Structures are given as structure tokens and as C-alpha cells.
């Protein structure tokens, strides 16, 4: 059984008009300020509330979500977002201003302190900051901590080592922090090539950034040796938490020798992705690095929670305290599942990936994998297979990445899919693989929008309704 997409087409020209095409108004300010301080006028759409509701209801019905069906995007960990965490975050007491006195927001600070503690336990870390507003911001925080640590030791290390299969953010983050990136090729078994690592490590090495399991789902079995090599050279080991959903209760980055890690609360702790954020990327560190975490700290004293400052702290990564409402949801999720639920989540995520790989008629070059697998589409174009899968009512996997697998289809079903759902997902894979090249090239055809021309969008960028009118 396969699913059609929800279709909501308005006309041949457009699926839903832009707000600006419905009704706009131009208004001038009424003179509460002198003219030289004000603009002439402002033109914006003015739908009334019923029309506004219909506009966004229609738009929502044209949007895939985790409550629509399977969303097996490898490396993205799209799992179910429990509504109870939304209800908890909607508590009016959560709606406070960040400049409130510590004594007047003991609830907020208590929750943050509690989440820091939970995350530290889960990651095997000694201290955690919740300030980074997304995973990439967490990476930036972590690398800035490494930089501050080396500087404090009087060292000006210039390089960050990153496996070529790593997430793009790793490279971009290292560059943002002013480091030269040294790419490490993968070994034949899909893991870190120890020889290449040893060759690359030097007194210039500030850190090695590593995901474990890596981006094709393989556990880096040599992790202890890797840690030794990096540490022996005076470098730090950074853990990219994107794949932590594979390991809960089975292994902790801190126990593997990592010094710094970030957590992707969306991926591991089920906060909603929101179509691209807000996220949160808390960072955990070992004790030695704790002084470098950004200010302000939340400290528990006899009289309650207070704000603390560390003189050695790196500069901040967010204007206030990060994405507070996301952190509330992460706390709620962790508290809901507890030890047993978290461990079960990882167990079932790994079981699901293995089961799905077994059901799908595709070769998976590397293994044993954990929560995700990188199949190859073989002679077919992975991107076209993905588009064809849309016609069978599922969201396709991540395609053409990591590059170590040709025509890669990086697939991560997460723990939330049932056996029946996985069987249906496998049927969609096989139906897309069984289609002709032409069918795949013309796909999708049963979706709200048919295949979209990406090239012309980039060649002639029209990024606003104003640009459409030109």
C-alpha cells in the first residue's frame, strides 16, 4: 500500500495566491512623530482573520510533516514531537523576560539547571551550556571553547581535522572560528582511516570533530585510539551530537574520550523542527573546559539559583539565553521518557534502520550500521528515485550524501515507525526503484507541485513578491 500526497491546487497558475495578491493596503503614519523621522507610507497585505486562517490552513495542507507520514531523512532524525511538550511550554509562567532578576525566575532557572544536569548525565559530560540556539551554533560554541582553551595554554593552533564524510556545518564552523580545515579521507571500511589521522595530526591540531556513529551509521570502533592520537598531540576531541539518537543508554561521548560535544535537541529529544528551527544546540564539556563555557552560568546556591560569571568564558553565542521554549520541550521529553524510554528509543531506532534496510531492495555498502544506513541507488539517480518516492506518498531519504556512497540514499526511519509503516515505506522504495528512468525523471506528478525547476530559481532569483512584479 502506498499513499498519495495531499493535493490542494487552486488554479493552473498557482496553488494558493500570495497574501499580497489577495488584498493589500497602503497607509501613512498619522503624525505622532515629526515627518523627518518617519517613512512616507507602508504597503502590506490586510487579510481579515477568516481569510488569514484559510490562507495558512491551505498552506499547511500543502506541507509534509512528521504527522503526515514517514520522514526518513538520514542524519536529520525526524521523530514524533509529543504534543504534551507543547502544552508544557505554553505554560504562562514560561513567558518571562530574560532580564528578570534571578530571584524572580527560580522556575525558569531551575528548569535550565535541571536540563543541564540531564544532558550532562546523558552525554557523560561534566558541564553544559544551553545557550547555543541550534546545532551549528553549538559547534561554534564548542570550537570557540577549544580555541579559548588553547589560547589559555598559550597555544595558537590553526587546524581543525574533519572527516570528509562529516556534516557541512563542521567545516563551516571551523572556518567561522578562523581555523584551517584539514579533511580526513574515510577508510575502506567507511570509518576514520587511522593512518590518515596520524598523518594529519600535529601540534597545529586544535581539535578533531567527529560524529559517532558516523554519517553512514557506523560506530567508530577505534574511538579510544583516535582519542589517544588527538590528545597525545595536544588536540581536543569534539563530538557532533547529530547521531546521538543511536546511542542513548548504550554509550556516552564522555566515556569515549570526547572533550566537547553538542546535543541536537530536535534530533535526540524530539523538539519540533518547525520547518527549519528554532532548534537548540547545548554544549557539554569535560571539567577542564568548564571555565570556558559562555556566560552567564546558572548556579545553584543555598538560597536558590543565581547567575554566575566565569572570567575565562568565551564570548556569547546568543543575545540572551538561547531558544528557551525549545529547551523546555527538550526537558519535558527527557523527563517523560526517563532512562528506560531513552534507551528504548535508541534500541528501536537501530532496529528500525536494520529492518528497513533488510526489506528494501538496495545495496548498503557499509555496516554494521546503527540508526541509519546509506544505501546506493546503483544505476539509478538517487535524486530521481527520491522524487519518484514522493509519488508514493512518503518523504524520501537524504540523497547523494555522504559522497563516499555513490548515489547515496541515507535513510533514517527513527524509532517511531511501526513494522507495518516500515513495510509500506519499503514498498515505496521498491516502487520508485522499479519505475522507469523516464517515470523517475518526470516525478513527482501526484504532489501539490510537480517537479520544480531549481536551476532557473537560482539563475534568476526572485526572492519576494516585489521581485515577482518586476
Amino acid at each position, binding site marked *: 500500500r502506498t499513499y498519495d500526497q495531499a493535493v490542494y491546487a487552486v488554479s493552473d497558475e498557482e496553488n494558493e495566491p500570495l497574501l499580497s495578491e489577495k488584498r493589500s493596503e497602503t497607509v501613512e503614519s498619522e503624525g505622532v512623530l515629526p515627518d523627518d523621522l518617519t517613512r512616507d507610507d507602508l504597503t502590506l497585505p490586510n487579510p481579515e482573520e477568516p481569510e488569514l486562517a484559510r490562507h495558512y490552513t491551505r498552506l499547511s495542507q500543502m506541507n509534509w510533516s512528521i504527522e503526515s507520514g514517514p520522514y526518513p531523512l538520514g542524519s536529520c532524525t525526524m521523530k514524533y514531537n509529543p504534543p504534551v511538550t507543547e502544552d508544557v511550554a505554553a505554560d504562562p509562567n514560561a513567558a518571562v523576560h530574560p532580564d528578570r532578576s534571578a530571584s524572580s525566575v527560580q522556575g525558569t532557572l531551575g528548569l535550565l539547571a535541571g536540563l543541564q544536569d540531564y544532558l550532562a548525565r546523558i552525554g557523560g559530560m561534566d558541564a553544559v551550556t544551553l545557550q547555543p540556539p541550534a546545532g551549528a551554533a553549538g559547534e561554534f560554541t564548542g570550537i570557540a571553547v577549544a580555541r579559548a582553551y588553547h589560547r589559555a595554554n598559550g597555544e595558537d593552533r590553526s587546524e581543525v581535522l574533519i572527516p570528509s564524510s562529516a556534516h557541512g556545518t563542521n567545516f563551516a564552523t571551523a572556518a567561522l572560528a578562523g581555523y584551517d580545515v584539514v579533511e580526513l579521507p574515510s577508510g575502506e571500511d567507511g570509518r576514520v582511516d587511522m593512518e590518515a589521522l596520524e598523518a594529519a595530526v600535529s601540534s597545529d591540531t586544535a581539535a578533531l570533530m567527529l560524529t559517532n556513529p558516523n554519517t553512514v551509521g557506523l560506530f567508530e570502533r577505534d574511538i579510544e585510539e583516535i582519542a589517544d592520537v588527538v590528545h597525545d598531540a595536544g588536540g581536543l576531541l569534539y563530538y557532533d551530537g547529530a547521531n546521538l539518537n543511536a546511542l542513548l543508554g548504550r554509550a556516552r561521548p564522555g566515556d569515549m574520550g570526547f572533550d566537547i560535544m553538542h546535543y541536537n535537541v530536535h534530533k535526540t529529544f524530539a523538539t519540533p523542527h518547525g520547518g527549519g528551527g528554532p532548534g537548540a544546540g547545548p554544549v557539554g564539556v569535560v571539567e577542564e573546559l568548564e571555565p570556558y563555557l559562555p556566560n552567564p552560568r546558572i548556579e545553584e546556591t543555598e538560597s536558590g539559583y543565581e547567575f554566575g560569571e566565569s572570567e575565562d568564558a568565551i564570548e556569547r553565542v546568543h543575545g540572551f539565553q538561547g531558544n528557551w521554549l525549545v529547551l523546555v520541550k527538550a526537558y519535558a521529553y527527557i523527563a517523560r521518557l526517563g532512562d528506560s524510554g531513552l534507551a528504548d528509543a535508541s534500541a528501536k531506532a537501530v532496529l528500525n534502520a536494520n529492518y528497513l534496510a533488510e526489506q528494501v531492495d538496495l545495496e548498503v555498502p557499509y555496516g554494521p550500521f546503527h540508526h541509519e544506513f546509506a544505501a546506493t541507488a546503483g544505476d539509478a539517480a538517487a535524486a530521481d528515485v527520491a522524487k519518484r518516492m514522493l509519488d508514493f506518498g512518503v518523504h524520501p531519504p537524504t540523497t547523494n550524501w555522504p559522497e563516499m556512497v555513490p548515489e547515496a540514499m541515507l535513510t533514517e526511519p527513527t524509532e517511531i515507525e511501526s513494522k507495518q509503516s516500515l513495510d509500506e515505506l519499503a514498498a515505496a522504495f521498491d516502487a520508485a526503484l522499479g519505475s522507469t528512468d523516464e517515470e523517475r525523471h518526470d516525478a513527482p506528478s501526484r504532489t501539490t507541485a510537480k517537479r520544480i525547476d531549481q536551476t532557473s*530559481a*537560482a539563475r534568476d532569483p526572485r526572492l519576494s513578491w516585489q521581485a515577482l512584479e518586476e
Partner: protein
Amino acid sequence: MSGSPYAPHTDAETAAMLDAVGAADEAALFDIPEPVAFDGEFGIEPRSEQELRREMADLLGRNDDLTEFLGRGHYEHYVPSVVDSLSSRSEFLTSYTQYQPEITQGFLQALFEYQSMLVELTGLGIANCSMYDAATALGEAALLADRVRSVDGEVVLVPENLREGKRSVLANYVDGSDLRIETYPIENGTADVDALDDAVGEDTVFVYAETPTVRGCIEPNLAEIGEIADAEGAMFCLGSDPVALSILEEPASVGADVVVGEAGVLGLPAAYGMGLGLFACDEEFLRQVPGRLVGASEDADGTRAYTLTLQTREQHIRKQRATSNICTNQAWVALRAAMHAAYLGADGLVGLAEDCVTLARDLAADIDDVTGLQAPVDDRHHFREFVVGTDQPAQAIADDLEEEGFAVHVIGDHRLQVCITDANAHAADDLVAAFEEVAA
């Protein structure tokens, strides 16, 4: 042992699946070497939904119930219920980044509309579909200047009273570059333009000014600041927000190359500083913009369709040569801001902005009438907030106000700051009465 309530496996299904993959149990699927395997406990007890809700209500209930007159970068305007109900629809809330545009037209169109609203408000050609917050948007703007300016310099000029959170984030962003931060003086709550003129030189690549400023003052010399920056080839970056921009001078008209700021003034209630980074800039920087952009295109039927575009700027394609490391941004908050803006319409938005001027003006006048207080301290037009001078120590007054149920900023030994919007205006008279109790 109870499992995850969100993993649907029955015991029989688990067994069948294990059988299918040839594993004796779940543990057999994990390829983790013994020395790094974890066999301890986190010590986190699972809670039922009901227990969780009670526990968290208790925990958050420890926050005091104060009426906040707080601003300085984080503002609350009343968010209509329809924004909650629509943005909470699971198709929006639980979706991923729009990497498959054919089935994510809804969110893409909403972000396209968000970008368009900012284009209208700023007068600039491009707005991205969000940064984390105003501070990180400022940091990204400085790095944009570093990439695109032909001048050799490395000085980033910011107001001397830039809010600490912003200054610190900016410092972090420029730490990996050759840039360094210098400040220019503030006079009467806004830029000391003569001093700024002196400070800007050929090593200046970036001049940052705000309106309203952190003290709530509307900057009267924006065009002049723009000219000063332009004369040295520096980028002029203006900090503002969408409510203020609906009546204040259009940034493009005063020479702003980039506008950053807090767009979460729309769509977000007080959220302990969680924000929405506004980022708009001139079209000439198209290929150097940080963050995601949604563009219009067509599908195979010739129907208008939307897609993420110019992704070759981004980290997942360009890696270390990307324009930023940003991946996940604040898309859902941008959706809410767009909804809120559309709910208000131009008329409602301008009206709200006018209220921000008149409410602050009236409250300052009322506070000025209180013995022992002077407001506003700065001889400027204000937007939402203003500084109050106190005869008594400011901290003592703020502490006493907290006892009375109000929160205000302490920004100096004898300086408070007070912020008023539509969200707390109903309590303005009560605040004044409380001031009368505690200020003399």
C-alpha cells in the same frame, strides 16, 4: 522496563523484526566496543504525561508573577490567538527544512511571504528567511562586510552602549576573522554624529547604528550616519525591528546596506530572550548573503512554485567556503511573525508602532510627575522605552517595585529603564502608583 511511549513496537513485532535481521536481541545490533559501552544509569525516572504536566507546572510556577515593563532587546506585543492556532498546526510545526519542495510548498510560500514583508519594511532588495536573533544577525552582518567590502580595513564600529549580549556575540563572530570592534560615543541616547565622523576612517569596514536605540531613542541622524559610512566605503548596518520600521524612516532611504534586528517582536510572546534574527540587505550582496533564501520558480506544469535557492552559499554544499555555518534557523518563528504581520496588516502595524511612541511618551510624562523621578532622561523621541532618572538608588527602587509586582530594568546607580507596549499598557497606571509608593 517501560519503553519509549513513542516507539510503536509490540513485543511480537520486535521479535519478528529481530528475526528478519537475524539478531538475537536489540543489543546484538549495537557495534560498540566493550570499553566504551555504557552500562550505568542516567538516573532519570520516566514520568507519565500527567505527572510530567503537574511537575512542570509546579516547577515553572516558582517564577514570580510580575508585570514586566522590560525591553532592551526583548519585547512583547500581544500575539493574537489565531497565530497560535495556525502556527501550531502539525504540518508546520513538525516539518523539516524544505529540501523536497514539491511537498513543502506551504512552508516555502509562508517564508517567501515573510521575506517579502521585510523587503517592504526595509526597502532593501533581499531578506533571508531568518537568523537566530538580533545579536547573531549583527555578527553575520559584520562578516558579510568582511567578505564584500573592497576596503582594506578591519574596524567594526558600534555604539559604546551596545547591549552587552550583542557586543559579546559580535565579538565571537569576528574573532575568527581579521575584524576588530571599536566603539563610537553616544550623546543624549543616540549617536554622537560628530564623534562618529571622527571615528570612521579608511580602516572602517562596518558602521552599526540602531533605531530605536537600546535606550528606546529614535535615532534622528540616520541619513548622516549613512553618509559618513559611505564616504569611507564602509558598510552601514542598521539595527531595528519590524514594528519600528513600519513608521520610522525606511532603511534604504537613509543608505542602509544591511538591516538586522529582532523580528520576534511580531509573533513571539515573552520567551526568555528567544528571538528571530532579521537580516535584510542590498541586492548587490545576493551571492554572499548568509542563511536560507526562498525563491519563486515554476513546476513542470508551469505553475508557480517556491524552493530554497542559492544553496551553493550554504554549508551543506559549500562546506568551509559557505557564507555562514548556519543550518537550522528560526523558520517557525518567522512563520509566526509573518502571520502576526498579516493579521495586523499595514494599518494595524502602523497603529501598533504609533502606540509604541505615544504610550512611552505618556508613561514617561506620568513618571516624570512622580517626586524623585525624571523621565525621559534623554531628550529624544522614544519608542516603547525610555530611561528614568532616580533620586533614590535605582536598585532599591527596582527591588521595591518587585515587591509591588513590577519588573523594570536597572541600568545605572540612579537609572532605571521602563518599556511599555500594548501588552502591559493596561497596568501603566498601576506602575505609576507603585512608583509613587517607592520612589520618593
